[in-house]
């Protein structure tokens, strides 16, 4: 069993920023590839939509299908205020879907790095707190923290902090577990090729689990933001 198990975590270029040594790693490269891919898709769809026809061609059809589907999803979660968040949820869902699936295309999924999922969850956290302050004011926010009895204050604070932590850890744990299991499986491949073909594992761990985690991230973000809004 002389095969080397490769988790695809390499440092490529060391940079020196403000006296700290920071490495450019696989995650940076894969994140750049996913973002460039989304940019190219955006430019193509923009070009096609400028000459939109009544009977849509393929690109226009898929784009309209996706936007309408995500608009429906956001509307069903955020009833009156869906207009302001539809674009963001649409983008985040597409980014998470592509980056979770990118394991199938030979990349290491960028969401397998906690440094990618934590900022996404922190963006949601900032949105939640901003909405809480905007719709309730500072007094109402503090009063909410003491709901139902003032002794609940530390518990409510912990539950506010636990929201981005659990959002980021859920996504990170799912994708990272998938990449580790697949890397171990590939390391033992010549022996195990008779047991199950890797593409089945990829289909479950990357496609299915990745798509569900992207959907759950978006749904939970919308639910938490909507909870801070008035009835």
């Amino acid at each position, binding site marked *: 069993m002389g095969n080397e198990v490769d988790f695809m975590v390499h440092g490529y270029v060391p940079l020196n920023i403000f006296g700290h040594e920071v490495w450019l790693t696989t995650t940076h490269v894969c994140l750049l590839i996913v973002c460039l891919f989304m940019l190219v898709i955006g430019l193509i769809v923009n070009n096609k939509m400028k000459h939109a026809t009544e009977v849509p061609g393929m690109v226009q059809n898929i784009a309209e299908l996706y936007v309408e589907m995500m608009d429906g999803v956001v509307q069903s979660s955020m009833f009156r205020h869906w207009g302001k968040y539809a674009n963001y949820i649409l983008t985040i869902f597409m980014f998470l879907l592509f980056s979770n699936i990118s394991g199938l295309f030979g990349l290491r999924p960028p969401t397998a790095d906690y440094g990618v999922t934590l900022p996404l969850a922190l963006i949601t956290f900032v949105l939640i707190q901003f909405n809480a302050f905007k719709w309730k004011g500072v007094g109402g926010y503090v009063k909410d923290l003491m709901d139902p009895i003032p002794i609940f204050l530390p518990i409510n604070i912990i539950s506010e902090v636990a929201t981005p932590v659990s959002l980021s850890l*859920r996504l990170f*744990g799912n994708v*990272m577990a998938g990449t580790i299991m697949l890397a171990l499986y590939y390391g033992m491949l010549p022996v195990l090729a008779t047991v199950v073909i890797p593409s089945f594992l990829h289909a479950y761990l990357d496609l299915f689990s990745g798509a*569900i*985690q992207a959907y*759950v991230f978006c749904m*939970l973000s919308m639910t938490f933001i909507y909870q801070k809004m008035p009835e």
Partner: protein
Amino acid sequence: MNGITNEGLVLACSAIGAGLAVIAGIGPGVGQGIAAGHGASAVGRNPGAKGDIMQTMLLGQAVAETTGLYGLVIALILLFANPLFGKL
């Protein structure tokens, strides 16, 4: 015969700890199975609402999965990014 070195002890206990940490996967397994059972009986009672029931069930199951994942993350940290190795 030499004694157990400090690093050896830390590594051995990290390995045992990693194994114990993943036992936390029992909770979500039981809970999600029960939720799936309730979901299936709800679809049986009201076959028209199958889409809504499945969406709600998947959302609830992914949220309940989180605590099992906490155990897995601790185990992975202990195995691959051990912070206790080299202290003391």
